[in-house]
């Protein structure tokens, strides 16, 4: 009995670690392969290898020298950051109203906000384009900040509303008795409690803005204003039909590394942020 039990336990542990290994390999392998490819040159690219056989930074050099990739990186960082800050600012106040103040039509409003995320981006493209030109922000970073609101705002409002709903009511009431206005409650009491949640939603929105392609392509018309995903799409080989896999993979690695770093830095916060809903007094 004891022996079989041990055997079962060992099998269980082995199976568990096998599962862990499978999960990690499946998650990381494509990225690993992209890195591998990015070190290859010429016809080597079409040959399959599992381990690095050649090591050449040429692809990276050509990415960073072709077009204005470093500039595009900066654009992406700027646009994604501003978008996130703006969305968080608008969403925090709106989430307070939606989660803590009861008024007629609150559920309807939340539904409308969700509805905005239901419309295909393709369909608003032309309307947004006209609007952006009318506002005179075409081909500026603001055009992208402006248009990204369409998907960052509903998301941040919803998630922050969920988080704020879970904050204990008595803390707010204590603040009311202390004479805090709604603005003070948000900034002095709720925000410090919610910052893990803010980091999480901010990161999610940041990745959304960072990865966006369609708007970025449509609303910019010069190399200096474009963002990284567009820049990757613009990467090209020597001639029309040639797809520069090596360079694209190099660019992809360059674009992904900051995000992976960001996720690594914040991963604890991401998890705790989502669990910190019930702040205990």
């Amino acid at each position: 009995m004891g022996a079989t039990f041990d055997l079962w336990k060992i099998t269980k542990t082995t199976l568990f670690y096998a599962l862990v290994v499978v999960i990690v390999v499946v998650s990381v392998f494509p990225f690993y392969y992209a890195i591998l490819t990015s070190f290859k040159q010429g016809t080597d690219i079409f040959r399959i290898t599992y381990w690095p056989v050649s090591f050449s930074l040429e692809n990276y050099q050509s990415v960073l020298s072709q077009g204005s990739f470093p500039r595009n990186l900066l654009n992406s960082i700027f646009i994604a950051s501003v978008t996130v800050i703006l969305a968080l600012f608008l969403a925090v106040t709106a989430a307070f109203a939606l989660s803590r103040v009861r008024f007629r039509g609150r559920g309807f409003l939340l539904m409308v906000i969700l509805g905005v995320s239901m419309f295909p981006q393709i369909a608003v493209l032309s309307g947004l384009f006209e609007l952006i030109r009318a506002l005179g922000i075409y081909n500026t970073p603001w055009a992208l900040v402006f248009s990204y609101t369409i998907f960052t705002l509903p998301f941040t409002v919803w998630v922050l509303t969920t988080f704020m709903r879970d904050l204990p009511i008595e803390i707010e009431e204590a603040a009311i008795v202390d004479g805090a206005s709604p603005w003070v409650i948000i900034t002095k009491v709720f925000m410090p409690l919610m910052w893990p949640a803010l980091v999480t939603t901010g990161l999610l929105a940041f990745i959304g803005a960072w990865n966006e392609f369609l708007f970025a392509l449509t609303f910019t018309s010069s190399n200096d204003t474009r963002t990284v995903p567009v820049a990757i799409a613009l990467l090209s080989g020597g001639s029309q039909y040639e797809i520069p896999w090596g360079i694209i993979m190099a660019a992809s690695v360059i674009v992904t590394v900051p995000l992976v770093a960001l996720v690594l830095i914040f991963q604890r916060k991401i998890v705790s942020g989502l669990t910190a809903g019930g702040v205990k007094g």
Partner: protein
Amino acid sequence: MATDVMATPVAATGGKIKSELMQQRVRAARWFLLPMLIALAVVAGWPLLRSIYFSFTDASLNNIDGAEWIGFGNYFRVQQLASGAVRYRGLLVDADWWNAVWNTLRFAATSVFFEAVLGMVVALVLNAEFKGRGIVRAAILIPWAIPTIVSAKMWSWMLNDQFGILNDLGLRLGLLSQKVAWTATAETAMQAVLVVDIWKTTPFMALLILAGLQMVPKDIYEAAEIDGVHPIKQFFRITLPLVRPALMVAIIFRLLDALRIFDLIYVLTPNSSATKTMSVLARENLFDFDKFAYGSAMSTLLFLIIAILTIVYIWLGKVRFDGGDR
């Protein structure tokens, strides 16, 4: 809670006497909501209404301003042929459209289902205590951090029939008997798209479920352990019900995304009728074909379909979305 009335958010409850506090809060709420609503109205409302309007006109991209109202013609109309035969035209009887609807629904249902299940498995693994958990947690987030357009390209590279590594791997491990052209044939194209999408978004799902798992008090499991409840029963009786709210919200956002899926398919299998989704078809009509109004009608119908599905989902899943009273 030992309070005798469920604590309610301090707020106007329709009382006749509007207290200063309620007034202040309602006023503040108004000011807080205003900027967001203006932003959304401008950035989404206006283009959206225009799209809906265009779906009732004969607009073309060459002639947007001269669009004329034609009612429901883009959706459905009856055409009398010279021979006297009657034909039904419009989006509602367009086989391509319904094929795209079917593709989209199939894609959304399958991908969200697998993402939920696999996300649950990954979350359960990450919720267990073991060495190197931090690294594993970081590793599973990588797919989620890679831009879609990049991961689509990465995978189309790996799925390539001749120099794709997946075929090579499959052959080496004896899983495949010959190289498969994953994105080429109708049977495998959808599977390929699904694999990539599931790979990419499972981490997101896992993360949200993990968050829910971590809120489950440990002593519940200890109690169940002592009571000798079988682990599988534990999962269905304890874990699942407690994780349910987080899961439901995660599924909502994934579902919305999946129903609008565009970029992945556009890069991976742009013209395969086996994977063409509503968004891809709408784009084709809006820009590639000179059918701006027809494409707008598709967008509008897509919006309606998503809205109905979401409402049904919220209703069936009893998802609390109006803020509740706690």
